[in-house]
């Protein structure tokens, strides 16, 4: 069964550094997402992306964050000048259609980001 793959599985960075989290969505999916989960808490929406544009973003997704689809397969999340509170598990997800149209999100296994 096709799956969403994320790299790296664990990233440790120092406060103030930039990190790029990488994702390869399922190949025939057109809609991409980033969610995050702070340890022991709920999964939170960051951003959705379609047709090389951000479709929706949450209040968490400020100027510190950016997303990009640099080629036909990768989808990246860049976090500039990381803060301690950015430490979390970051999940990439993809779907065939928008979730509202009965299209489930397929999540990757996540990248655990630790900011020290």
């Amino acid at each position, binding site marked *: 069964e096709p799956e*969403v793959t994320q790299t790296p599985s664990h990233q440790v960075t120092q406060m103030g550094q930039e990190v790029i989290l990488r994702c390869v969505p399922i190949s025939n999916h057109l*809609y991409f*997402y980033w969610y995050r989960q702070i340890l022991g*808490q*709920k*999964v*939170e*929406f960051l951003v*959705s992306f*379609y047709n090389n544009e951000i*479709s*929706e973003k*949450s209040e968490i997704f400020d100027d510190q964050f950016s997303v990009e689809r640099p080629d036909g397969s990768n989808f990246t999340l860049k976090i500039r000048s990381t803060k301690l509170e950015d430490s979390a598990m970051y*999940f990439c997800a993809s*779907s065939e259609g*928008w*979730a*509202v149209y*009965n299209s*489930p*999100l*397929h*999540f*990757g*296994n*996540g990248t655990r980001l630790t900011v020290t």
Partner: protein
Amino acid sequence: QQPVQSPQAVILREGEDAVINCSSSKALYSVHWYRQKHGEAPVFLMILLKGGEQMRHEKISASFNEKKQQSSLYLTASQLSYSGTYFCGTERDGTSYGKLTFGQGTILTVHP
């Protein structure tokens, strides 16, 4: 607004049943259910649409009560593999562009 899940935790013996509820104070368009095992990604279970039918995934079923703005997940004859945290994700309308607002999760533990 974040949906509220109840109970926060459930402990079962294999073969027992459980119900997990997901409630919203605002009108919902759809409710999505996911299960997450420790250290793993959330896995899709089912979607309930406004006006839609009750859905089923193996021995797990769910319903959506529009009047109450509440979805219930029914786990029948629980198996050890059902253990995990169950999240409901909600959409307010048809223009949310994939933004699911998740509840805080219900931890389900099934013992032999």
